[in-house]
Each structure stands twice: as structure tokens, then as C-alpha cells.
């Protein structure tokens, strides 16, 4: 069950981090901002806040809750 739980979450993250996002991560997104300046934006991950059980799932960690 734990394995499936984790697999499913990671599969869903794979959907979120699609080719379009990877392209944006590597080469940036060109956006003309409201001040008229065109900038190249690079998305970067800064934080992922979650409760302990959810963090265990995302970080491929076996927490106490899941070793039962």
C-alpha cells in the first residue's frame, strides 16, 4: 500500500513537471511584464511545505507512520 501510495504521488508529480515545464526550467519563459520590459523568467523550487506523513511520501522516506 505504501509503495502504491508513493508511486501514485510521484506519477502525479511527473504529470505536473511536464515537458513544457522542463523547457521553461532550462531555457526560461519569455514574458512581457506590465512595465513593458520583456524578461526571461526561470522557475526555481524554493520550498515544499507539507506535513510529516506527506513529506515521507514525497521524499521516498519510510516514516514511522508507514512502517506499521
Amino acid at each position: 500500500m505504501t509503495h502504491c501510495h508513493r508511486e501514485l504521488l510521484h506519477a502525479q508529480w511527473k504529470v505536473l513537471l511536464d515537458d513544457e515545464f522542463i523547457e521553461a526550467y532550462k531555457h526560461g519563459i519569455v514574458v512581457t511584464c506590465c512595465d513593458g520590459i520583456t524578461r526571461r523568467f526561470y522557475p526555481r523550487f524554493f520550498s515544499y511545505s507539507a506535513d510529516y506523513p506527506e513529506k515521507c511520501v514525497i521524499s521516498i522516506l519510510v516514516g514511522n507512520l508507514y512502517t506499521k
Partner: protein
Amino acid sequence: MQKSQASFKELVNIVSDPDFRPSDIREAKWGLINEKLAGDKPDEEWCEQDAGWKRTSVTIPVPFHRKTAHPGTKEYTVADFYYRSLVSVIREHLTDPTRHRHFHYEPYELYWQPQDTGSPTRVHGEVYTSPTFIQAHRELQDLPREASDDLPRVVVALMFSSDSTHLTSFGDTKLWPLYLYFGNESKYRRCRPSCHLCSHIAYFKKVSPYSMMASPSLKVNYFSSFSFQPPSRTLLPRTSVEKALTKHS
């Protein structure tokens, strides 16, 4: 009370309007309209083009040990995973004129200089004044450029948060949303719901023992793993199924 008085006034205004014709109300098919309003058609609402929500199904491999009837990996598909494209959310945020003024495109170091002491003190508080942001910004500037590209480069600090939420006091209706905040905004603005700085990215699906047992590809293995035949769904308490499955997995 106040609300009902206000709506009563509204109703009076409508009825007394010169354009109002009682025949319009009389001839409308109220039964049909109510039915349509009450009807549960989530697909139409979720997949609206403007909202940008997408729906997909996710398939994962489920391993079965060699003592089960059909060992090896079987595919299990979870339908209705709703999400929004991260790039489109970022693009939407960056082109919003109301957010532009408060969006920090470049990081800086913040210092506090008390009058009587000599050395200034570094103030840590915002993402865009943090060493991590500054380092990310520097790394970005150092990346090799194409000859034709002279656009300013900006870090978009993505801050995800997610928490499984119970929707009801009784029962087990749950949602597991994924939110996104931008670190380029001040924390004092991020935490104000009225600023609408939180974007919903996805609603994660969870593996449920019931749906796994019902899945055609896994059904045979699950039923053969048990020494008993599970009774019908209505008779089986959820917790006992979960316990049984956890023991077997």
C-alpha cells in the same frame, strides 16, 4: 435578517421595473431550470477553458509477490487527476497588472544599521533577501547566453505547499490540494487571503483499497490474497479492508 431584507428590496425593485413582465416568470420552466442547477456535472465546470484545469488519468505499476495467483507487476490506473499547467499559472501571475507592483524581480541584501553601533546587521526575513535567492540569481546570470538573447533574467521562486484536508467532520471525504506561492512576493502579502496570491495547482489522488480491489487488472490477485471472499462493499467497513491490505502488502 439584514440579508433577507436586502434581497426583499431587490425583489421589489425587480417587480416594479417597467421592463418587468410577469408572463416571463409564468412561462419559464422552473422545474427544468432547478434540475439543471442541482445536476451534478463536474466535468463542465472543471474543464472550463478559462480556468485552465486539465484532467488526466495516471497509471502506476503495482507489484505482486510470487505467492499471489498472478505474480509480477500489474498496471493500476487512477482516473480524474485534476491539475493546472505550472507554466500557464506562472505566466498568468507575471502578466497580472495588480501583482506586478509588488513582485520582486531582483534579490537584494537587507541590512539594519542602528545609529549607535558601527556594524550593520543582516536582516533575514523575505525569500528575495535570502542568500539562496541571491545565489540562484547569480547562477542564472552566469549561464551561457545565446548571441541574440539579451533579456534580463529573473528567478521565479516557487513555493509549494500541500496538505491533505478533511472536508467533513464525519465521513472520510478528503482533498489533497497542492498550492503554489511565489517567493518574489513579500510574506506579508502572501499571507493575506485578500491578495489572492495562492494558486491551486493540483488535487492529488490517493490510492484507495476499494478502487484497487475493483480495478480489473488487480482484482484477481487481491481476492486470491485473502483467505476469505470479501462481502459486498456496503457491508465491509473501510478500516478493516485497509488493515487487511496493509498486512498483505
